[in-house]
């Protein structure tokens, strides 16, 4: 049976310590993810974009899942997310990777002026300054809407294993891409092969925020 786009996104929930009765803020999630989290017995506050976060009460959320990648491009959104998540709560934040090969090709070869997304470095900086501690980050393949594969990127091993053994080259260009990816992974550049990234971070207590 084929996995549909919506079903694959529902698996993001497995990466957070969600527990029955908790409250989760969901930003831009597919209905399947919303349904799956509801099915786990959690209460959901669902919003589409960053402007609606302002309406959410401070420290009222146990966790947040932000699937709308444009939200995490705005500095203010991070501090708003930090405001609504209680200390010790978790956030899964999806970002569009501005340093992916696809983005770099757009910028340098196709001379696209507008850069989509944000860099991992910038996102980590925003997370820290807003009061979060990064726990891990993942490459989402094919993208955040359809993450059939969620690959941990902090260690080289899993990415290498992914491109060596799991990545299915369905076209001749993908056969070559796989070879290039394996070379790049050996140099620690694995994140460049994922258009979307998922960051998991923990909300620190206010006293720990620098």
């Amino acid at each position, binding site marked *: *049976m084929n996995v549909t786009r919506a079903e694959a996104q529902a698996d993001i929930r497995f990466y957070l310590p969600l527990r029955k009765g908790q409250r989760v803020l969901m930003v831009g999630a597919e209905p399947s993810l919303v349904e799956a989290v509801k099915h786990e017995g959690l209460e959901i506050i669902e919003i589409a974009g960053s402007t609606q976060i302002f309406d959410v009460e401070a420290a009222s959320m146990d966790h947040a899942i932000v699937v709308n990648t444009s939200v995490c491009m705005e500095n203010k959104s991070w501090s708003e997310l930090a405001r609504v998540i209680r200390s010790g709560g978790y956030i899964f934040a999806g970002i569009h990777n501005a340093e992916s090969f696809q983005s770099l090709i757009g910028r340098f070869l196709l001379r696209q002026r507008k850069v989509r997304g944000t860099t991992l470095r910038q996102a980590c900086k925003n997370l820290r300054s807003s009061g979060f501690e990064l726990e891990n980050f993942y490459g989402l393949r094919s993208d955040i809407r359809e993450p059939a594969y969620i690959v941990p990127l902090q260690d080289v091993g899993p990415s290498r*294993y992914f491109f060596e053994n799991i990545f299915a080259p369905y076209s*001749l260009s993908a056969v070559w891409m796989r070879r290039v990816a394996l070379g790049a992974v050996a140099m620690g550049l694995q994140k460049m092969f994922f258009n979307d990234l998922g960051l998991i971070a923990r909300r620190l207590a206010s006293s720990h925020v620098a």
Partner: protein
Amino acid sequence: MLPDILPKLSGEWKDMLQAADIQIAEPFNILKIAGAGGAHRKVNFLIFGHGATLPAVLLKQTRSRMNYERLTMEYESLMTVSSIPFMNGKMPYPIGLFQHDEGYILVESCIPGRSLDNLLLGHSHVKHSQVIQDLNATRDWLVEFQRGTRGDPIRFEGQVEVQRRIERGAFHLPDIFVNQLLALAKSVNGMLIPLSARHGDFWPGNIIPAHGEIHVIDWEGFLPYASPFKDLFMFAITYAWSYRWKGFTRLTRKEAFSRAFLEANWFSAVLQSFMGEVLLAIPGMDRKYIWLFFTLFMMDMACPGPEEDGMQVGDSENWKEHLFLFASHATLSLDGSCI
């Protein structure tokens, strides 16, 4: 959820992992690989220890009762099959089946490596010599697996079985082909076919070649006693699908099927030789029955019966298309040849 489950790997499940000779260091890395479809889908996670380049264990997680039954079946299958001496190290080792909150988790050892399907997709293992090596390794595995699990035989009812399948699927096949098939079935009426275990999803995506042998994963469709033809023909056809390259051009499934079973070339010759050798290892079998049972297998896939329950049969329309293609172009004769 996983952050609550993973500490068990170094806690309450640690002894079971050590008994299976699995060492895994924290912090763990989780790689989600595509799971099955459906609302309460089963999801598979590979767990890597800190700094490891290979996964240590595979976690299969499900939240539904239906998938729990499948996981239980898979766990029991792994327990049964791993006790066959020949299978030792050639399949995942079951660590345990656990309940967590309202979900269920099957933990098994991980067989690392690139599947045969993935290799073929990546234009590897496509040379004549490599194809022969892979088919020989698969043949050896399948013959040993069936030999090690062989049970009582069932009587093949010849024409009745052919007719029953045609009626069940309401297949409108060319009369000439049906008559040839019935004549072939009549010649083997009453034959005893020994049952043996069935993997149930024996396709190149579940086969990992390593050092001239194969390892087989994903035992969800296992049955202890089934027809010995299912795994054989499932593999032969899906192998032809996976081997889609013609030079650097990719064929459609239909074209790949035609090349493998309806044309005369080196690929169809080695595949036919593979099927014949596996068939010959079944007591009482002869090469000339290949195309009879091959056709019956396609009928079963095109219109699955009770025995196909649990098999990953895929799209029945696709199988039906292949069946009609075969019936329209093949000429079966009583000596077992297929033109």
